[in-house]
């Protein structure tokens, strides 16, 4: 499609649609278009942005009906010369495209998203390092890609119906720490997930994974967390990772060092 101009149609505060006509240039993103509007046409237009490269998570908005990051959405990829932009659905609007993400962030905090260890002195005050193998990192790394942009939260049909639902982002983060061999917080987190507003409310619509700009795949994390919850009901399990190495370790000591046992469902988990 040969574009030489486009119309940006923005749903602004108060429900009015503003139309801005712009010249198209090659490589133009929806964020570029918004910047141009604020700088050349209407300085009162409010939207969030920062990094321009899809890593800070600021510029989530609804573009042509789908939650996306404006900075990495090429205008040309939308195939339209009228681009419709709205604030993220399911969140309260503060001004124009700026929405309140505090409820979303509080769910993240709720699932205890940090490494839990019994020995706090070791975790916070020692000079040790835990030994983790690359394939163990791979079990949780994908879920650690989350940039907290809230696109999944906005897309989730269950969030829209149940304000107390933890939502895909928070449950993916809970699972991220559960799958980390260094973590000992399995018991603390599992009860947060095994509840009416937790993993069982997910209808497996998969919209979270569909819109995620970082391939985190929260829907998969929720399914993995469900397996853990079921196992909790069947097996009484304790979770204790191995002791860390004292550092520095003598050269060549690698093979003898204790490392955390792998997180293996078939064997009924750790411990």
């Amino acid at each position: 499609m040969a574009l030489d101009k486009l119309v940006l149609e923005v749903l602004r505060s108060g429900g009015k649609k503003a139309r801005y006509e712009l010249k198209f240039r090659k490589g133009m993103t929806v964020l570029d278009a918004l910047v141009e509007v604020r700088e050349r046409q209407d300085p009162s237009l409010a939207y969030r942005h920062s990094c321009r490269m899809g890593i800070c998570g600021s510029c989530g908005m609804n573009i042509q009906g789908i939650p996306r990051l404006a900075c990495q959405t090429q205008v040309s990829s939308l195939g339209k010369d009228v681009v419709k932009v709205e604030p993220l659905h399911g969140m309260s609007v503060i001004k124009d495209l700026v929405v309140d993400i505090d409820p979303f962030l509080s769910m993240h905090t709720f699932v205890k998203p940090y490494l839990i260890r019994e020995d706090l002195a070791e975790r916070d005050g020692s000079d040790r390092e835990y030994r983790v193998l690359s394939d163990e990192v791979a079990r949780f790394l994908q879920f650690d890609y989350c940039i907290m942009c809230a696109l999944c939260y906005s897309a989730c049909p269950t969030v829209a119906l149940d304000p107390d639902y933890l939502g895909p982002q928070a449950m993916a983060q809970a699972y991220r720490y559960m799958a980390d061999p260094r973590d000992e917080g399995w018991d603390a987190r599992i009860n947060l997930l095994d509840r009416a507003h937790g993993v069982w409310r997910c209808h497996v619509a998969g919209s979270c994974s569909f819109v995620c700009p970082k391939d985190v795949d929260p829907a998969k994390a929720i399914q993995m967390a469900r397996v853990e919850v079921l196992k909790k009901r069947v097996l009484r399990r304790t979770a204790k990772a191995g002791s860390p190495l004292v550092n520095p370790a003598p050269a060549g000591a690698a093979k003898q060092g204790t490392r955390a046992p792998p997180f293996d469902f078939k064997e009924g988990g750790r411990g």
Partner: protein
Amino acid sequence: MVEVIDHDVVIVGSGLAGLRTAAEVMSAPRGKAPTLGLVSKLALMRSHSVAAEGGTAAVLYPELGDSLELHAWDTIKGSDFLADQDSVWKFVTLCPDEMRQLERWGMPWSRKEDGRIAQRPFGGHSYDRATFAQDKVGFFEMRTLYDKLQEFDGWSRYEEAFVTSLVIQDGTFRGCTAIDMKSGRFVFFRSRACVIATGGAGQLWKFTATSVSTTGDGIWLAYQAGLPIEDMEFMQFHPTGLIPTGILITEGARGEGGHLLNSKGERFMERYAPSKMELSPRDVVSRSIMKEIAEGRGLKDEDSGLSYVHLDLRHLGREKIDSKLPFIKELSMKFVGLDPVDEPIPIKPTAHYTMGGIPVDDNGRVIGGGSREVKGLWAAGETACVSIHGANRLGSNSTAECLVYGRVVGKDIVRFLASEADAAEGASSMVAEEETRVFDGLLKNESSDDDVYAIKARLKEVMDKSVYVFREEAGLAEAVREVKALKEKFKGVRATDGGRQFNYNLQDVLEVGGMLELAEVVARGALNRTESRGGHSRLDYPQRDDANWLKHTLASRTDGGPRFSSVPVRITMWKPVERKY
């Protein structure tokens, strides 16, 4: 009415340095943790630190051959001998602990085969000591620290609050004023201790790797408060900024074996740095790229008009690119539509890192005029100038600096608060004056003689043209004249959006006002410094001149513009020698 908010400590800025400071302050023994307010013009996790890619330097395994001495020497040589050597030594000794602390807080470091923390080669380092987590190191460090903070109570987040001034009376910090963007209200954060951790000033340039938020606010706040700022003429241009936007392609791409090729397909670094080649320090590589382009061996992007060279990763193969450089692949595909597995990446040097900043001592305490500290004020990270980077920072030393000094400052503040009993007092007249400046002076007019965005765009063009990798007298003098003229025009600028909530137009006006003053310091400092050292390269003075210029620049604000002075470099370990790679 100004809303007054009281805390023991206020941290301005929520990037790596700010979050690390917060984690350290909140880690104080139970019952002794101060109350903390974390203030940022962005929401948390949106800071530019998330864009750091390649690695964090630390000597992790001395038993395998690395050493603190080597890290210090590489850093000092990389700085072109402008770093303060005692500070560098303290810095390198603290780096390893930080890598392991993050490890114990959940950082997903990439691993060696035996499960220990992996490290990769980086420019100017003579050992593989860039600790990494794929190619999103800053992002994962931010996630780890943000998540860690969720464990603590007793801190408050003031997101999207734009700080407009520091209130300092009789050499003592009293608080800072801010606009709460959500409500549009004017707020006074009153505290006994304050840390400025707002990052650098990369947005002075158009072709830049930095976030739009990287406007040098904190450095300007200190400058505006009458404190000197240091070495601002030293800006780092990272060799590999993606055409046409300047966003960063990590040095890790060369660390993993990527080549730089000119239009003839030659690995041109052979001409300039035959031993270190593509892994020379950034200033060396950036100059080499610009020489290739100047001598007609570059390529040209017709749409943007920008000249460039190629970063070639094709020989690394799909598997290595997918496992070690997935973000580089993602950026190339999403922003220029090419897969680095099949095509070379178009790049040129991009404004990246502010070596200068607010001068601080080894505890991160801000040094005021005449080497006196300002009681109660700290700076950390890119905002600060310790100086451990001197005239050129080595890659992977910046995230390390944020972590190390975040911890150092956090500890120092806890000590300071324990020994300083007096509560913070108001400074109501200064707060009221600032409210008048912002709201009556800039907001309520709703008409403007000049366009703030046109001024900002022109400033960036001037900086890209004349205060870039190579500089010379005529261009710098012209840049100084242009910036002064823009400052003059700016006097007629007001916010044309009269609203209160999320008035980004007002924030833009405040930012640009600061940017113009910082640009003046950068351009005049560069004009003054008649030598070439590290990131400051003068075509008309191509040699380093230790006899006259082995010293730090200080700039203080006056009504007529910056007043310059200097302080000596602390040479405690190695005498300056010729810098060759």
